């Protein structure tokens, strides 16, 4: 509507010889206050997901690592933010080279306008706002990987790892699927659909997590019971924040405040709700005890799966996508247990596998009735879309797998190994890596309370 007003004004302005005062408030003509408002909020929402992830993860580990696990998420908000501004954004979304990567044209945000849109990406919001929104995705993605290496990866290694990973794994995958001219995306040859990060966020982090879990090895523990979550209410707080933030994640990926944002938000919520119920139902059936952690895990798996599909499918299929995602992730955790690798917080099962399923499901259920700029999936008449999706999945898995392997090896060279010493691991990384403890009163013998003595 904005657009039409603009055009109208332009036309009539010419007609009636009125000066167009369009930039009076610093707005370029195409910018919509309504869209800017929504995208500012969506940016804040997605940003909040990273601390949300911190709590989601930290509640699931032992108390002696609660801060170190939190820090693996928080520090991504520090490192990746700065990196993104310096070169990350330019590499991911800058002028295309071979459909694979951007370049340094926009390094230091050169030419990323605060006032005018980049019409390749988002015609009704300033380019800088698109950059900022994308930054929040770039932050949370490496943080997701941390779930596979909690309680044992050195903090120094982790910092270097996510720096390299952002540049060598995230940037190319994001470029290929989302950037103008990217190999896999709608403007490239493959034309796969990925609304909000099935490839760049979920598959990339999930596959990388698996590689890292294999490279870094299992956690030490003196007894299996020790590895239980130390604080599930904290995990629930994280779940609440993630669910809340996901409205911005998927809804914001419409890049405007209109029906597409709404469609994505509705699909996200239905998928999350259905998957939460689904996981709970599986547990109820298997153990007679539907758990809160299961509900939370299901909700996350469902929203992961709907992420690539959110702006392309109707509510009904969204529900189904969620349900199936819960089953797949649950089953993959069982597979993990059998295989014996320690993807500690199940990043591969919950993000990698549900992400793959989501990409496939997009190829099944996508419809141009929801998003005219999208494509139809198998069930709406275009079987080729499934092939396109599978291609994108395959490329993403390869890049993430190989890239992570190389980046991890490089990191290991730089920091002399990825893993904290056995002693440090036993003492807990909070003390040994960060010099602090989460709940000092409890963990140190000094009575934190001296009430009424």
């Amino acid at each position: 509507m904005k657009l039409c007003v603009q055009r109208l004004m332009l036309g009539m302005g010419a007609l009636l010889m009125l000066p167009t005062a369009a930039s009076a408030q610093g707005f370029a003509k195409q910018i919509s206050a309504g869209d800017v408002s929504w995208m500012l909020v969506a940016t804040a929402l997605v940003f909040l997901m990273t601390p949300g992830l911190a709590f989601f993860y930290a509640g699931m580990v032992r108390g002696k690592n609660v801060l170190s696990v939190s820090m693996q998420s928080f520090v991504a908000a520090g490192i990746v933010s700065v990196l993104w501004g310096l070169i990350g954004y330019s590499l991911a979304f800058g002028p295309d080279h071979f459909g694979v990567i951007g370049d340094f044209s926009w390094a230091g945000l050169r030419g990323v306008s605060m006032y005018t849109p980049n019409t390749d990406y988002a015609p009704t919001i300033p380019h800088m706002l698109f950059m900022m929104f994308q930054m929040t995705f770039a932050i949370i993605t490496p943080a997701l990987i941390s779930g596979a290496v909690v309680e044992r990866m050195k903090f120094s290694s982790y910092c270097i790892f996510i720096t390299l990973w952002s540049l060598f794994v995230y940037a190319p995958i994001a470029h290929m699927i989302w950037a103008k001219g990217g190999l896999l995306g709608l403007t490239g040859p493959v034309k796969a659909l990925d609304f909000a990060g099935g490839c760049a966020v979920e598959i990339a982090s999930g596959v990388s997590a698996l590689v890292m879990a294999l490279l870094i090895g299992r956690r030490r523990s003196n007894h299996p019971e020790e590895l239980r979550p130390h604080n599930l209410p904290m995990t629930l707080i994280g779940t609440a924040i993630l669910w809340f933030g996901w409205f911005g994640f998927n809804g914001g990926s419409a890049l405007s405040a209109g029906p597409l944002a709404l469609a994505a938000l509705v699909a996200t919520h239905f998928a999350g709700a259905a998957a939460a119920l689904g996981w709970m139902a599986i547990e109820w059936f298997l153990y007679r005890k539907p758990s809160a952690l299961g509900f939370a895990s299901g909700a996350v798996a469902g929203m992961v799966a709907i992420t690539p599909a959110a702006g392309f499918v109707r509510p009904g299929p969204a529900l189904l996508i969620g349900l199936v995602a819960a089953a797949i992730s649950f089953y993959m955790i069982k597979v993990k247990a059998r295989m014996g690798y320690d993807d500690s917080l199940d990043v591969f099962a919950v993000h990698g596998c549900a992400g793959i399923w989501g990409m496939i499901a997009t190829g099944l259920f996508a419809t141009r009735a929801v998003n005219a700029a999208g494509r139809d999936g198998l069930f709406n008449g275009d079987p080729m879309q499934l092939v396109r999706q599978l291609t994108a999945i395959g490329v993403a898995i390869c890049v993430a797998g190989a890239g992570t392997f190389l980046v991890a090896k490089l990191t290991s060279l730089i920091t002399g190994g990825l893993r904290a010493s056995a002693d440090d691991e036993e003492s807990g990384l909070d003390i040994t890596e960060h010099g602090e403890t989460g709940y000092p009163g409890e963990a140190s013998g000094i009575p934190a309370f001296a009430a009424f003595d």
Partner: protein
Amino acid sequence: MIRIEAIIRPSRLDEVRMALEELGHSGITVTEIKGAGRQKGYTQHYRGAEYSVNLLPKIMLVVVVKDSEWEQIAEVIENSARTGDIGDGKIFVSQVLEAVRIRTSERGDSAVS
């Protein structure tokens, strides 16, 4: 004096305390502990992984009493802590050489009454 150390169910703490107070004995020290024994533990599932827990929450009471009173007090604890199900706990009785009330430096029986 005699030190009575009773390991009981958390849910019986109040009954025991009330029973002791009826006897006129209120001095008591309580610790949250975990115990294992014949009582069965339970199983939890976190993301499909099974964890069996067999250290169960119990309460440890320490009561130090005069030599003359211990049998009565132990019996009162015993009776008020009993549910009849496995896991009711134990009472261990031992000798105390000396007792001191820090505030007043009283020693012996008068320190614990």
